[in-house]
């Protein structure tokens, strides 16, 4: 399945990219994606402990399965206001 992954703030700084298109096995979970990303971008490994994940613009959690064609965003806890 194909998904788009967007990186924000520190996460974008670590990867050096704003977004990537990934082709993952169907049934991949948020946890699985995080492992994949840590392998692909070793600099992300440390951040993956506290990172937030949004799947199709809702907060996603480790056990959630990512649907095909999803927009997934990876970012640190928010600091707006």
């Amino acid at each position: 399945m194909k998904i788009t992954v967007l990186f924000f703030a520190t996460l974008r700084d670590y990867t050096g990219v704003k977004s990537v298109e990934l082709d993952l096995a169907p049934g991949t979970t948020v946890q699985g994606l995080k492992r994949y990303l840590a392998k692909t971008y070793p600099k992300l490994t440390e951040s993956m402990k506290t990172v937030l994940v949004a799947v199709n613009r809702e907060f996603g959690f480790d056990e959630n399965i990512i649907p095909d064609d999803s927009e997934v965003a990876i970012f640190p806890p928010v600091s707006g206001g």
Partner: protein
Amino acid sequence: MMPSQSFPTIVSITEDEFDMDALLAMVTLPTTGAAAIFTGIVRGFTSGEESHETSYLEYETYRPMAEAKMRQITDEIRVRWPTVEGVAIVQRVGRLYPGALSVLVICTAAHRDTGIFDAARYGIDRLKEIVPVWKKETGTGRDGWVEGSYIPRPGE
């Protein structure tokens, strides 16, 4: 003549300066008698343990999700304070210098004893928890991304 009961809601992410008077007018109904407003302002000087000066902040957002979460907060406010009439939540993004208004929450109602102060406070507290916006600081002492600490739970 009873005025219409459609309550105005404004949610916006903008690079432009706020016009507070215009925004307030947009969430004011004929029945509205009171407004509680919170605004965040870019500090040039932060005192305390991590005392430092700020040259500017750069705000970044994941806009479609941020807009959806801001709208969710306006819904949460209306559930908790059903007498609230108008709600506006506006986040400014881009490069902001000290003194600039960075965020605005307005809650209006017929009277001031309807919870509008608590509602506005809730609005800014929630925004700082669940709306995907980040700021990067440039100044003396602690340059770089400011990280929050709130971890949303499922359903938030």
